[in-house]
């Protein structure tokens, strides 16, 4: 059957998303997006010795929102906080063999979901969050 407008990699992560779910008692939780733009991503992390030992996500959104969430969790699992913070939306999109132009905002959301979870973790552990972190709350796509 067809793979729609997406790469095989996107479709794989969409149909078989990795790390779906909730972490009980997470060390950090971040939620980005909003119902108006049609995408909400929630990311849970477990951190031990500055390393992200576990990560899970829940996403309300289109195919690429789910695929980018899944890919982002894969890309930060086992990484240090500093490494995870280096993850860019472009890196997520590239790891998925590209995204349609009108879907690039999903990769931005995924990047921000990681940052939001880390922000929460830092707040909880150090008392202050990620310097300068402020996720978009407007729809990001071109109109």
């Amino acid at each position, binding site marked *: *059957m067809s793979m729609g407008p997406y790469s095989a990699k996107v479709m794989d992560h969409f149909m078989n998303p990795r790390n779906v779910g909730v972490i*009980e008692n997470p060390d950090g939780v971040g939620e980005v997006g909003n*119902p108006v733009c049609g995408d909400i991503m929630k990311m849970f992390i477990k951190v031990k010795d500055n390393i992200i030992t576990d990560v899970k996500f829940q996403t309300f959104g289109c195919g690429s*929102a*789910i695929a980018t969430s899944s890919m982002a969790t894969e890309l930060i699992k086992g990484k240090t906080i500093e490494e995870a913070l280096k993850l860019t939306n472009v890196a997520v999109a590239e790891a998925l063999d590209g995204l349609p132009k009108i879907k690039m*905002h999903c990769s931005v959301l995924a990047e921000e979901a990681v940052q939001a979870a880390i922000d929460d973790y830092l707040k909880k552990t150090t008392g202050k969050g990620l310097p300068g972190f402020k996720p978009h709350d407007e729809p990001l796509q071109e109109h």
Partner: protein
Amino acid sequence: MSNRTYLDFAATTPTDPSVLAAMLPYFSEKYGNPSSIHSFGQETRAAIEAARQQVAGLIAAKPEEIVFTSGGTEADNQALEGIAWANEKNGNHIICSAIEHHAVLHCAEFLKKRGFAVTVVPVDQDGLVSPEAVAQAITPKTVLVSVMHANNEIGTVEPIREISEVIGRRTKDEGRKIYFHTDAVQTAGHLPINVAELGVDLLSISAHKLYGPKGIGALYIKKGTRLTPFLHGGGQENNRRASTENVPGIVGFGAAADLAAQTMAEENAKLLPLRDKLIKGLTTLIPDVRLNGHASVRLPNNVNVSVKFIEGESMLLNLDMLGIAASSGSACTSGSLDPSHVLLAIGLPHEIAHGSLRFTLGKQTTEAEIDLVLEKLPPIVDKLRRMSPLYPGGKK
């Protein structure tokens, strides 16, 4: 690819094989330009006049009231801009409903930038336009009202005759013509249409929605209605639409109109129970599903539901992987990320609007296909809901 299930007939239909057969001679054999005086031109001229009769017949109009266009969009644009420019001196106010197709709404926006005022009349939670609301929106400057015959997303059929009556009354009061256009792209060939009974001055049709070819449509223009041409150039279509006629397309449109007139009743008798089975199945098998659009005053082939807590595209892609083709919102805008303006207009919150699915049935649809959807969709919904941060049942 075989074994695929197409449930997106409102987006477009396959050209009926008999329609294609009618078109075939007009590509490489009977190819003359209908404006040419010689025999090659005369044979194609005759063919398009015969097709004009067939299309007119479908809506009980006179052949000379039919102007062929490149599709539904051009018909809508021609209606709005044609009336607006021709009546500039009489007024600059246009009324349309909130759930019109973008071919009407965006054209109205264009006219707004060029000095026209546009009033958008709301709809109720079923998608119905109130004739009273239309009456109240009319001002001494109103030149045109445009309300679609049936909505392409939610299938609600509008009370066109009642609206035409209030417009008629206001026309009398005002002592000046207020034109009434209806976009019948989703109804022509699917519901019986009689332009006189509907009481409209202008009516848009698109052939590819009724088993005709893509790229051809028509605008019904009631005799005596003056409008500025949309396409400027040669004298084709009695000086109403320039450009060499799309002869095979027109011939195909005619054949499709004829076929639709013959098979409509039978088709609908088949589709109604299938539609109702699908609606009933979806709303009972899956919790938190609502039907969008009017429960009974709706197109015989339209099912539109919102599935709470999840998003439409992700359902579509899962269905597509199983060979089932549906749509979320209108096909034209499925490349867009905005939630459907129609679903917002009937009062759905954004996240529910984002979670809508449209199944539109057609000639090829079988009960087995309906059963397939009812078998395959619930587990998809379940899987996606379990992924959703909005789903209460998802949090353990």
